[in-house]
Each structure stands twice: as C-alpha cells, then as structure tokens.
C-alpha cells in the first residue's frame, strides 16, 4: 500500500502544527467561533449533537495494521472506547474534546493519517472498491489512480471552496462495489478496443434530497490525461455550480439543469485548453505510486479446499468470503453488524484485534467498506478457520454479509445534529426481528439501508429496501422505499406510500420480504423479484389495513 514520501509527511505535520496554533488561539479568545469553525472543519472536527466529532480520512478505505491499531488507541485515549466506521470508508469519533484534537491529529500523522478534507466544500476522501487489488474480477488495481487523485485533490487551491462538497469514487471492475454511479464523479478504469487502459468518467450522480445516477460523459480518457480531465470536470462545475442555494449546489444539479450534452461540451472545451497547459503529472509519478501497490508475496502451490466441517464456520465462509485473484487465497469480510448491534461501531479492543489479525493473516492490510464493514483482502484459505475462531471470540464473526441484517445506517438522531429521526434503533429492531424469525438466510442478498434525514448518509435511495426517517410534527416517522441499487444495475428506490412509526416500519419490512418469499422465481434476489412484479403486490401487503400505524 501507499507510503508517504517526505512531501506527504511534511504537509500533514505542518497542518498539525497549524491546527495546534489555531486551537490555542480559539481557547485563549483570539479566534471567535465564526473564525474558528471553518478552520476546524478543514481538519474534520465538527460540533455534533453531543460533543465535537472528528472524522478521520481513510483513503480509498485502505489501512495498515499500524494505522488500524492507532485508530483503536485513539478511541481509548481520547474518546469513549469505540469508533464508528462510515459510509465514506472513514472513521468517526463522537466524544472529542477540543483541546485534545491537535494531539489526536499528531497521533494520526505518526501513522500517515489525517482528517484533512473530511469536511467542507472541497474534494472529499476518494473512495474505491474495498476488494481492490484482490478481487478476481478486476481489470487492474484501481487504488493507484485513487491515490493519484488524492494527491491532486489535496490542498488543490482552486477546489477548496467549491459550491458544495465533492465526492469521487474509482473502480476497475464491471461489478460496482463502491456505488460509483452515485458519486459526483465516478471513474471506472477500463480497457479500450486497442487494449489500452484508460478511464471512463461518469459525472453528476449523488444521493441526498435529489438523487441522481451519474451519466457517462466520456468512455475513455487516456491515463496520461486522467488528472487533466478531472480538472476540466471540476473547473466547469466550479464556474457554473450554484452558490445561491445549497440544496441546488451539487454538480448533479448542474449537469441536470445544464444538460449532459452542454456540460460535456464545456468540459471537452476546458479539457482541450488544459491539455495545452501541461498540468498532468508525469506518468513516472503514476508508476511510482503503482509500485507501492504491488501484490504482496503470495505463496504458490496452496490448496483451494476449505474444511467446512464446522457448520458455523461454513456459514461464515459462504456469506463473508469472496473470490480472490490468487489461488489458495480468499477475501474475508468482518461484519460490523452483530444482531441488535450498532452498524459500523467497533470497540477499541475490537479495532486493535482486527489490526493484529491483519498483521497475522492478511499481509498487514485491511479495508473499510462503504457498507461499514472491515475487509481482510488477502487471507490464505488454510488460515480462514483460525481467523474465524479469533473473530468469533471477539463477537466479530456474524455471518450476514449482504443479507438483511447487514444494514447500512447513518448515525441518525442519536448522534447527528442534522438528523430528523433515529436510524440505529430501527436497524437494531430489524436485525433482531430477522434473527428471531430465521428468514435472513432464506431471503439471501437483500441490501437494506437507513438514513435519518434527507441527506441520505445511510444511502436509503440505493437500498433494495430503503428507509428514510423524517420528522412529522416532532415525532419520528419512517418512509419505506423499494427497488434501489448501488451496483452496476444502479437504480433509485421508490417510496411505497405513507410512512410508519418505529415498530410499524419493522413490520412493513417483514411484509415486503414475505411478498418476495412468496413470489420469487428461481435464482431471483429480492431486487429481481421487485423489478419483475413491480410495486403493487408489495403495497397491497404492506398497507393491508392493520399494518398502517402512521
């Protein structure tokens, strides 16, 4: 994985010193909150519902054991013994003291981490496929391109005051595991008919109050023009994006209102101009980065067989492992969704244990997924049982990946000052309901996502089943959506009808899954059945008269 060079380290260390001074001046009264707020936000420090909250960047979700261990230590030393992994592959701490924040940033810098650009109207953490560099189905490892974009976008003076925040995802497989089409810019690394590697650009996707799927604006950008093209996309947005209305300020609104054709025309014109300005980093820099993402030293001659005699282990292997490109290896996923648990939360001890296990079983590497889980990207199949035993002893071996209990949920009103309703209790009740009724495995793949407000941090638009919490005259109310997908078959969910109370929404979800179980055809996922039979059978079941309590 990528290691900082002297410039990276110097930039991060300088920022820590700068923020330490800014914090001192805030505490001694030389800076007002109005002056300090943008400075702390540039360093990922929010004032949230209960306290200051620090969001730490995990570039494209990749972590070393040492970095993961530091995240656990910070949870103990400065927070309340846990952290929350987010849908942007980051981690958040909920109980930070302002006077501790510079020390936390210094600790992070000691392991090549920071919280820069995890807030504000700038280019945020670049996200990617959590199986990058390991998946059997990828064209190339997308992370070197994500890293190149990270370096380009970090402190980019032209793009630190965009009309609104800006999110980029990079993938390199046909299977989209990063919700790429729901980003401001989605980049898919592709091979053209001539056999050359390049990038397809999708621009103007997003969730929030106006969800949109990003249209393809260019199917092939040569690799030695990747940054130049991204710069052109941002420049046109920065020039024309609306600053008068924050709800219409994202690039998706610009592309929609300007029209894909006109936006693309302007990007191409800007691109042509920028090509004459020679702003592209030399390919030697990309080569330098790529060298740091070389495959680990896989053993050869390993057996592919796994002893599945233990039924619980067999279930975990079936649901929580994924095909690896190297014979004898597997990708293993730790679900941070125990039955009745808080999606994405992990204790300091669990975080440190996951770090140790990465050192012992996965070439010192972990990934954070946008679904709020943790990945061991390179595990010998022969080691899976030992890994599972240690995870199981720590409550980290829930076998539910991509099942209804593997719920994405934003922090909701329990933690977030923007939220209108709580997300976590609904997630807990649903996971408990489906653990008790035993239907989860039979249902199979069903991606359920919950947001506590229209900002959609819980990706409810993209859930096979989505839930949106709203405030109805001071009471929490939950809308149900069906038919969303974040994958290559990207689609946006449709609201079923009137909302429900907290218990009613759990009943409604079960009724929807019962329709699926009754109507599914061979091989169909919940989403496939919904797409085949449409909304009406679900509505009829969900709104049978006694079920509506909202």
């Amino acid at each position, binding site marked *: 994985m990528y290691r900082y060079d002297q410039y990276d380290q110097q930039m991060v260390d300088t920022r820590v010193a700068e923020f330490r001074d800014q914090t001192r001046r*805030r505490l001694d009264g030389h800076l007002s909150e109005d002056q300090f707020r943008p400075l702390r936000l540039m360093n990922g420090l929010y*004032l949230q*519902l209960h*306290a200051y909250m620090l969001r730490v960047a995990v570039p494209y979700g990749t972590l070393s054991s040492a970095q993961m261990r530091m995240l656990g230590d910070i949870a103990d030393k400065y927070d309340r013994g846990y952290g929350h992994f987010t849908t942007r592959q980051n981690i958040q701490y909920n109980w930070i003291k302002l006077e501790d924040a510079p020390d936390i940033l210094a600790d992070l810098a000691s392991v090549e981490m920071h919280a820069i650009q995890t807030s504000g109207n700038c280019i945020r953490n670049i996200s990617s496929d959590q199986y990058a560099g390991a998946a059997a189905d990828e064209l190339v490892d997308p992370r070197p391109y994500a890293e190149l974009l990270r370096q380009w976008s970090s402190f980019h003076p032209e793009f630190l005051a965009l009309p609104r925040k800006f999110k980029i995802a990079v993938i390199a497989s046909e299977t989209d595991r990063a919700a790429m089409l729901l980003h401001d810019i989605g980049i898919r690394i592709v091979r053209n008919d001539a056999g050359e590697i390049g990038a397809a650009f999708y621009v103007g996707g997003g969730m929030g109050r106006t969800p949109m799927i990003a249209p393809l604006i260019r199917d092939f950008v040569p690799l030695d023009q990747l940054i130049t093209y991204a710069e052109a996309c941002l420049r046109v947005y920065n020039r024309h994006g609306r600053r008068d209305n924050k709800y219409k300020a994202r690039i998706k609104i610009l592309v929609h209102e300007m029209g894909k054709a006109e936006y693309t025309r302007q990007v191409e014109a800007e691109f042509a101009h920028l090509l004459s300005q020679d702003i592209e980093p030399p390919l030697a820099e990309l080569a330098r980065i790529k060298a740091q993402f070389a495959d680990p030293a896989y053993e050869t001659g390993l057996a592919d067989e796994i002893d599945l005699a233990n039924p619980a282990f067999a279930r975990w292997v079936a649901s929580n492992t994924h095909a690896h490109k190297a014979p004898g290896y597997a990708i293993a996923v730790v679900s941070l969704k125990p039955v009745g648990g808080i999606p994405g939360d992990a204790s300091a001890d669990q975080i440190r244990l996951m770090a140790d296990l990465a050192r012992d079983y996965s070439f010192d590497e972990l990934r954070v997924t946008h679904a709020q889980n943790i990945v061991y990207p390179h595990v010998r199949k022969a080691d899976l049982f030992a890994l599972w035993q240690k995870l199981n002893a720590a409550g980290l071996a829930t076998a539910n990946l991509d099942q209804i209990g593997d719920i994405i949920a934003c922090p909701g009103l329990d*933690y977030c000052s923007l939220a209108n309703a*709580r997300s976590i209790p609904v997630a807990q009740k649903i996971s408990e309901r489906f653990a008790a009724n035993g239907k989860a495995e039979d249902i199979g793949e069903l991606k359920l996502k919950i947001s506590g407000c229209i900002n959609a941090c819980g990706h409810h638009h993209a859930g096979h089943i989505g839930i949106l919490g709203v405030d109805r005259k001071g009471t929490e109310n939950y809308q149900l959506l069906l038919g969303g997908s974040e994958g290559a078959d990207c689609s946006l969910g449709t609201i079923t009808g009137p909302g429900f109370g907290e218990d009613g929404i759990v009943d409604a979800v079960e009724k929807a899954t019962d329709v699926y179980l009754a109507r599914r055809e061979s091989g169909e996922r919940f989403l496939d059945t919904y797409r085949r039979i449409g909304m009406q059978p679900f509505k009829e079941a969900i709104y049978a008269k006694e079920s509506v309590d909202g």
Partner: protein
Amino acid sequence: MKILTGNDLRSGAVVWWDGSGWSLHVEQAADVGNDGDVIAAREVAARTVVSPYVIDGEATSAGVRPAHIKERIRALGPTVRLDLSLKPADPTAGDWVI
C-alpha cells in the same frame, strides 16, 4: 418556557443555563424568558460556551424537559448507548426521550 443550551467550549459537552452557570443536567435549566440572546452573547464572550441557542422547554415534576425529541436526545445522550448517557444506571432512561 424558554431554555438556553449550547456546548462547553473545551469539552464539547451539552450544557444548559441554570440561571447562574452551565449545567450538564437539563432538569436544572432556567426559564430565560426573553433574555436568552443576551445571556448567550455574554457567555460566548466569556469563552465558556459555543454555539448557544434558545429552545422551548416544559416544566415537569421531574424538572425541565425540552419540547423537541432532538433536544431531549442531546440532553440525555444516545438512546442506543445508555451506558454513555447521563443516566447509565437507568435502563429506562430512553423512555424519557420518547
């Protein structure tokens, strides 16, 4: 009644104006009437509190209770981690929020 809340500048903890200072316990919040903005400005200048604002509250037999659920969750702590709330020993503390 009108009550004044904000966050402690240094710790970030949710605090409530009790008539003479800031309390962690909303039950002790004072009715600030029309004086909330004046108190808030004075306390911001004194660097004790950050981002103060006035909300609606109601007097109950158990003390002051914020009118809106969001403020009740701010007052108690996360309902899903009562061990981290102001009433970690009370398993029914979440009922007060709802």
